[in-house]
């Protein structure tokens, strides 16, 4: 869910930077944070291929992902 949070935060940051009522320090700190989150989000998207797995329940009720097709 952190990807979703990153993007929500990014929107907040872009909107805040668009307002003129921030101090320079605040603006720079926000920008720095935004660039970091942007990089995390881009890295997540750059992941070559998502996995397709099957959620399997074991006898003890534990849940685990297994590669589909196995």
């Amino acid at each position, binding site marked *: 869910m952190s990807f979703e949070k990153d993007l929500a935060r990014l*929107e907040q940051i872009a909107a805040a930077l668009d307002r003129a009522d921030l101090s320079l320090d605040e603006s720079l700190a926000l920008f720095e944070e935004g660039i970091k989150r942007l990089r995390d989000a881009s890295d997540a*998207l750059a992941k070559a291929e998502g996995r397709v797995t099957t959620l399997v329940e074991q006898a003890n009720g534990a849940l685990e992902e297994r590669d589909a097709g196995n």
Partner: protein
Amino acid sequence: MTRRDAAPGESPETAFPVAALTQMAKEVIEGAFPPLWIRGEVAGFKSHGNGHWYFTLKDATASVSCVVWSRDTLRIPAPPDEGMQVMAQGQLSVYPARGQMQFMVRALEAEGEGLWRKAFEATRARLEKDGLLDPARKRPIPRFPRRVAVVTSADGAALHDILSVIARRNPSVDVIVVPAAVQGETAPASLIAALDRVARWGAADVVIVGRGGGSREDLWAFNDEGVARAIAACPVPTISAVGHEVDVTIADLVADLRAATPSAAAEAAVPVLEELVEWLASLRQAMRTGVQRRVVQARRDLKRWAGDLSLRAARSVERRRSRVQELAGRIDALSPLNTLARGYAVARDAQGHALGSAAAFQVGQAFALVLRDGQVDASVTAVRPGAPPSAGGAVR
């Protein structure tokens, strides 16, 4: 004809027990009538405590007793209403305990979609009463899910459609298949268990629950009240995707989002990767622009403040300088040397102390008079206290 030759039932001695008669009648009737559909009007419906249903099917001139065994009631969406025109499929038989003809119903359909509609509305009313259909309950679907859970048949067309749509739109998204039976008597329990697994697992961003199109009966698990409640209870936002566009199911009403088909559900769940990348780029640009504008503004502010500051500093120096000049003028004006310059003299004793009063002089005392251009040595010839000739005690 001897008694020995009498066939069973031909004489009092070979009389059938009643049970044998009804058993024979049962076998004969069941053998004579294959399973078949009959139509008629429902009368005297009773649901017995053991789960079996009893009613009579009749028309203007005839009637037949009907029974639905409890295990068969599970396949019938709802009990029929009194007077309802129905078609019943089953086996004609005999109920030995009463020696009565009885139709054992396996399937029941009302004219039109009567029973389905009735069951649908009843379930809908119960869910509505519990607030589960309240639009305010609907949660937003996350816009950028990374992990999509799919509750459906592991080998159905729905799963295939969903996987290919997601792979096309955004191959970086993970798909977690949670297999479930989607039709038949086991489907509701299986769907509920799968949704429970998704809930306990907790790592999905969104869950698609559905199946491809089918008959009303095929889709019926998605009208099951328990399935609806499991969807409502799922902590992960839900997208329903059942059959084709025309079929609205109870699951559709409860889910956070209704998609018309499994493919549409996948499209609703997963944004296209390129659009996402573009959107990130536009966010980056917006942030750049914002912070650059702020920096430019800060630079401008700084320049203005610097100009302001040097102006204030110059003014402040100027103010101090004029104050110094004014003080210097005043000090100059008060200087005794100035007084001497105007022609006054100061009397001093031998030690150089100024003699400012007549009382400081004694007759015969030597003293000096300091003037603007030199000193005169003198001695006192007389002392006369009294009013001075002018202020200052100086001698002219």
